[in-house]
């Protein structure tokens, strides 16, 4: 259950950005982008966030998780590949590359500014 450790890093990042904005207000929303092959579970991340945010400036901040489906492509043929099956290009036989679906990103914060 590494989602608590991810949330710790997320919270630190949110507070760094909020402080840099110079706002004494509170954070209302945290939007994250999580790849389906990132190794992080969006539901568990939200649960961890709800536990972690208590008695912090993020206490009222809802987490919005955008899940990114894996996308594979052959770097030589530039052809998209199906999500499942053998991870080789059906045209040239070369190894496929994951073009998206492994991201763990803080996209946006919505803050209350007095």
């Amino acid at each position: 259950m590494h989602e608590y450790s991810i949330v710790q890093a997320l919270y630190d990042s949110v507070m760094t950005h909020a402080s840099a904005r110079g706002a004494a207000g509170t954070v209302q929303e945290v939007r994250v982008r999580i790849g389906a092959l990132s190794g992080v579970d969006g539901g568990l991340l939200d649960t961890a966030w709800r536990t972690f945010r208590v008695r912090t400036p993020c206490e009222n901040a809802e987490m919005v998780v955008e899940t990114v489906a894996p996308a594979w492509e052959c770097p030589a043929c530039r052809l998209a590949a199906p999500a499942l099956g053998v991870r080789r290009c059906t045209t040239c036989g070369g190894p496929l590359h994951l073009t998206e679906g492994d991201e763990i990103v803080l996209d946006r914060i919505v803050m209350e500014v007095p």
Partner: protein
Amino acid sequence: MCDSCGCGDTNLVPLEVQQRILSDNERTATHNRHHFLERGLLAINVMGSPGAGKTAVLEATARALAGRRQIGALAGDLATDNDATRLNAAGVRAESITTGSACHLDAAMVHHALHHLAWHDLDYLFIENVGNLVCPAVYDLGQAANVVLLAVTEGEDKPLKYPVMFRKADLVLISKVDLLPYLPEISLERIVASLREVMPEPNYIAVSAKTGQGIEPWLGWLQQQEPAHASGATPHAHAHTHEHDHV
């Protein structure tokens, strides 16, 4: 405050960030990697389920490389330093990383542990991660390569169940193959077929720490990964700011 009508409502301001959440860990991992590269040290992140045979394979590796390569290890576990004790007995210069409740190692734990291990003259540093096929895959430690152990007793479809871990493997060691004669329902071919569905470049070696099968090819693979020893490289003065105490 809302300045248009003086109602007292606060303004909601969106702030676009677009930042990787683990960027701090990635910075520390890059720092570790820099240390390893300037010393010409090959660092390997060894991952796998609890009981996959990580420590046993490292013991066999140390025995096979005795007198040829200087080997060190950081052994991560929730509790006990049993693995480090075993590795030390096998001739590995090993240090424990006891994580308490943490299910994985991160780059800061590795960095911290390096201060307790004489690692500068090592050829190989094996970072034996906490036994777990989920969490360790998420954290870069500064390693040159990921090696994942998969024991034949774990089931042929294990790679399909844990695709994130196996996708990140540069090499899979299919371990405990000496048990295959006793497991008629398990086929090495079907294990490899599962690997092909999650790994674009499925490199694997079937090994047995008990019989020594596969150990020579494994040593050959390690040798191929060795960084060129940078002659005249200036050792890092270690003047950076640490985010942790040096205990």
